[in-house]
């Protein structure tokens, strides 16, 4: 028998050892791959973005992206070590803090690109709306499960109250993209928690007029939707360049650093990073990237499905929905299948807030899907596929 010393044995009871043996490695690997691809892509996008914004240091955005990536990894690992109770506590703390900041924002925030949604902290600006989303999902799932226990907790009302407060604050900014995203994820959470099917029809009756009035009330949303529907040649600079870039990339891409489009599109390093990647590395890369997103989303939902505790099930599934929804919307916008919405591609787009908040989102989800005695209906790796 060869003496094989694993860094930490299965019998290792230290916090890290326990974490390593209980966390889902496939999910972890998927997220790690996304973070690394994000840093790699910033090498391609940073010089062009720096030139556009007149920053002298070519790798300004690469350096910052690397710092954010490290921060996200730390948050991811730290939160994924939590117990379900710890997850609820962190979610509550993050919720309260973010709501406080969101309320204070109109007074202290600094406004970027027509909306006041940033908090300036040292050299970085933080966007509290990014962090509040996972917190709402976890708290809502918790409240739904408490409500269903029938012990006098008006869970559903509290969950809707928590959601309503945040959406109200989003709409004041106004931040329609985040509102839509949170609404979909919250709706999915409510659905998974077990809303009667006949209610769903009723809710649709409320949601559809809501979306229609959003369209008419907020000028910039209407303009974007109309632009998408009308395919007006004059004003679709970004998306036209993105379509050309993806077409230029074809199967194998133009090669690293060879993207032409990145010199001509604002937000190339944030909302349109997918197109830059598709131009430089081609369809092979894009399909692999979509594959990794799909892997994390589907694997995550599959694990959530097999959990036993209703809170853990719904909360982890809701967090994976948040992640999946954001990636689907961003890629769909890049492929011109949806109107531009100003949404980032999780872990890949440049941006501190979205990066750190995604670390938090998946950290919490990993914590809930960790192996624990009695957590899963069937032993890990066995039946129910």
């Amino acid at each position, binding site marked *: 028998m060869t003496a094989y010393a694993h860094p930490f044995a299965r019998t290792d009871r230290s916090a890290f050892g326990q974490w390593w043996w209980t966390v889902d490695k496939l999910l972890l690997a998927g997220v790690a791959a996304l973070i690394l691809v994000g840093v790699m892509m910033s090498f391609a996008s940073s010089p062009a973005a720096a*030139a*556009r*914004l*007149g*920053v*002298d240091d070519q790798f300004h955005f690469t350096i910052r992206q690397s710092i954010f990536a490290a921060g996200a990894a730390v948050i991811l690992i730290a939160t994924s070590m939590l117990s379900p109770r710890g997850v609820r506590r962190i979610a509550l703390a993050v919720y309260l803090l973010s709501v406080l900041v969101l309320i204070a924002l109109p007074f202290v925030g600094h406004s970027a690109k027509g909306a006041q949604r940033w908090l300036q902290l040292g050299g970085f600006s933080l966007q509290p709306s990014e962090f509040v989303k996972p917190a709402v999902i976890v708290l809502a799932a918790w409240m739904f499960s408490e*409500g*269903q*226990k*029938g*012990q*006098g907790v*008006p869970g*559903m*009302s509290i969950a809707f109250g928590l959601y309503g407060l945040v959406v109200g604050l989003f709409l004041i900014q106004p931040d329609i993209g985040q509102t839509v995203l949170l609404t979909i994820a919250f709706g*999915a959470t409510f*659905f*998974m*928690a*077990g*809303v*009667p099917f006949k209610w769903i029809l009723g809710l649709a009756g409320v949601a559809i007029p809501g979306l229609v009035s959003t369209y008419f009330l907020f000028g910039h949303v209407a303009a974007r939707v109309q632009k998408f529907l009308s395919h007006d040649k004059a004003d679709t*600079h970004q998306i036209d*360049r993105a379509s*050309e870039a*993806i*077409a*230029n990339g*074809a199967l194998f891409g*133009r*090669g690293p*650093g*060879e993207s*032409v*489009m990145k*010199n*001509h599109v*604002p937000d190339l390093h944030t909302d349109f990073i997918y197109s830059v990647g*598709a131009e430089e590395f*081609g*369809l092979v890369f*894009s*399909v692999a990237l*979509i594959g990794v997103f*799909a892997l994390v*989303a*589907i694997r995550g*939902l599959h694990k959530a499905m*097999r959990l*036993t505790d*209703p809170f853990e099930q719904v909360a982890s*599934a809701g967090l994976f*929905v948040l992640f*999946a929804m954001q990636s*689907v919307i961003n*890629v*769909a916008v890049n*492929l*011109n299948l949806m109107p531009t919405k100003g949404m980032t591609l999780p872990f890949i787009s440049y941006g501190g807030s979205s990066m750190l908040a995604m670390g938090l989102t998946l950290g919490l989800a990993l914590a809930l899907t960790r192996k624990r005695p009695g957590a899963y*209906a069937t032993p890990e790796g066995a039946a129910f596929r």
Partner: protein
Amino acid sequence: MSLFDIRIQAPIPSLRWLAERVWSVEHAFERAKAQARPEEDTRVRIFMVLCVFGLAFGLLTLGATRAALFSGKQTVSGPAAAAAASRADLVDRNGELIATNLVHYGLYVDPDEVWDVDQTRQALLAAAPQLNAQRLQKALTADHVSYLLGGLTPQDKDRIHALGLPGISFAEEDKRVYPLGVSASHLVGFVDSGGQGIAGMERALDATIRQAGRSGQPVALAIDLRVQGALEDELSSAIVKLGAKGGVGIVTDTQTGEVLGMASYPDFDPAAPGRASDDAKLNRAASSVFEMGSTFKVFTLSAALDSGTATLDSRVDVSSLRIGDRQIHDDEKSNRVMTLSEVFIHSSNIGTSKLALQMGGDRLVPYFDAFGLFRPAPIELRESARPLAPRKWSETTVASASFGHAISVTPLQVAAGVGAVANGGVYVPLTLKKRVPGQPIVGRRVIKPETSEAMLGLMRLNVMKGTGTKANVPGLRVGGKTGSAEKAIGGHYERHKVVASFASVFPTDGPVNQKRYLVLILVDEPVGNAFSMGQRTAAWTAAPVAGRVIDRIAPFLGVRRVTDLPNLTPTPVPEVETEGEQ
């Protein structure tokens, strides 16, 4: 006791009704969960969501494939094709060029057509040393056309073209060029590499400039580059000599509101805005607010005269003034009764405060409002900042504001307000666009023409006998008012940090509708040195600059010199400047 019971006992019937509804819904939700086999139910639902996302990712993969391979958009999108719509030239009021788009060239290489890779590489590197050797090598051995270099001037392009290398091609690119360098940089602003206006007029008139660019017409600005040149030259050299932190200079035509010159220091090169600090890019004329000090007395005395509170002959006891527990000070203490003119030329805080209190806030504040002191200066620039004005007008506030404290405004607001005092009493919005001759000018009356004339007389008197003597220019009938405000830092006034300003008008004589020009000079934190006889005050720092600027620009503006009458030769009075609440 559960929350349920608490809710039901809600006191108001409608609240009770609401609580009951809420609870019936809660119970329905709870029952639905209990009736469906709980675990299986959520599992099935999560599985449905999973399927939806599986489908979504599948569709994205199909969409990605279609976009990459079957979109039919396989055009090589070179920089020329993608460059933003061409922008119009910017010219000054006389048609002199300020900003233009020049065609530059992008360099491409098609490896299929290259005969000799080594020779091509060496020749290109020799002709264009800025090329990256590794990148070039890669491009030469790639299997597609590559973009090597942008921003080549026609000379660069010709040099490379003359090498006669096969496989090398050029495409036109558009580039914004500012031939005057730093001149008028804050006013003109700059664009990003995609041709989007980011600051100054490039941003304010972005749409107009693009539209004009399509029809090939230049956009004419109001400024006169000769005036701008003289203003920048005098202001920058004074700032260096005075060791000041920064400065502002504004020249306007008071009747049309056209800004003929605007300078802000420190400045930056609009061709490389990325290399300049935010401080250098700050347009202090439009975006910085200052407590202006005594320059405000122009507004207070205009209001006092116009409202009939005082006449030029009114007398004010300036020996002392106490409001509550606050003492108002004059630097040159004087235990006498002054006429209104003396209050102005000796710049008495006590006298001005007393006049303001006599009027009362109810009458003074509407005048300040009409002079535009509570709103961002009306001008095209998006940088035009909001002033910091008091919300409540107590007696102390009225007194402080009457001599330019407790209210911070931008230099552009002062220029617009003093312009209204000088042009016969009409507030005309400032503009950086050249006015079309004959186009009616929409302004609103603030003070009577007689008040305007009286104020012009007072300002002239101040330059002849008061604090403004250093601004006098033989034959140009200059009038003006100084202001030297100590900066409020951390709640108290800092003696050594002074904002020195001089608002001047010329010529001050002639009929009320005479063409008059305003020159506003502001020097931020001058140090008292040999150049200013050890003084920081506006009389020694800002006023001389205004005088030299006026001396230089009057010929361009068509203002004729007249022979000064001997009794109108200025006779300086002792230095009495310096405000601030001690």
